[in-house]
């Protein structure tokens, strides 16, 4: 395709990120600490229920995914 020197859109957003944990992400150490904290004191029915509700909730906040 002939594209060199042609108009470039302003509607392209660069969301590339550097490697490793950055921005709002958690490090694996932090995640492990949270898991350890969660299971401290043993597994109870309430903890299982919370786990199911939290992890089972849609990542999208209830919206279905887009189109490929």
């Amino acid at each position, binding site marked *: 395709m002939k594209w060199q020197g042609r108009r470039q859109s302003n*509607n392209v957003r660069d969301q590339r990120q550097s490697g490793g944990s950055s921005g709002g992400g958690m490090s694996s150490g932090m995640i492990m600490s949270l898991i350890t904290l969660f299971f401290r004191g043993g597994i109870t029915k309430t903890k299982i229920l919370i786990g199911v509700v939290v992890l089972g909730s849609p990542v999208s906040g209830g919206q279905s995914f887009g*189109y490929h």
Partner: protein
Amino acid sequence: MEWLFWGVLFLVGNPLDIISPSSGFSSGQSQYQPAAGEEELFQFVKVVIADTEDVWTKLFSQHGATYKEPTLNVFNRSVQSACGAASSATGPFYCPADQSAYIDLGFYEDLSRRFGAPGDFAMAYVIAHEIGHHIQNLMGTSAKVQQARSRLSEADYNKLSVQLELQADFYAGVWAHHAQKMNDILEKGDIEEALSAASAIGDDKIQKQTQGYVTPESFTHGTSEQRVRWFRKGFTTGDMGQGDTFDANSL
């Protein structure tokens, strides 16, 4: 105390969202260093999007409508869209909720190595297909499909999905037709690259590669032959009126 912590975490949101790197330019994010050649690919993508803006603005205008330009989000690793968190493994996609397309530039390599469809115009076709979903969003087609979803069985919805996807292929072809007329964009072999990409990502071909057999009732995008045919039809005619895959006698 422990429960208070987890209660707060639950109310704040899904932990998977926290685990996933956030979108945009949040504080603390270090400057991204693109790999060699990636910046050129990034600029190429910007030109393709500009071409889609030129074409669809003109076509909408001819029908007395205004084209609302979408945003293309280029990401690597992971991204947060209004449709949820996605990773590079998700592949390119369009999210109607934020009227944005999302693509990892690494997909260019995937097209070449994994799908055997190299070339810049293969990538242009993929982008034009996602913009095709934006056209469907603006025209209300995807909303109708979503409304029908709750009433349909999975198999019936899959058929509707195939019609939607083939129409996006058709719109990609319409774009190529008019972009050539307006801006003389094509080089020798470009259309073959697009057709090769359309063929490579047909449901039948992917299923054969991944599971060794084909289950047509689970198709969501159409066969290789269908995808090639609808792109070609859009490119040959350039006529939006001929892309009604929902009313076609044969897909």
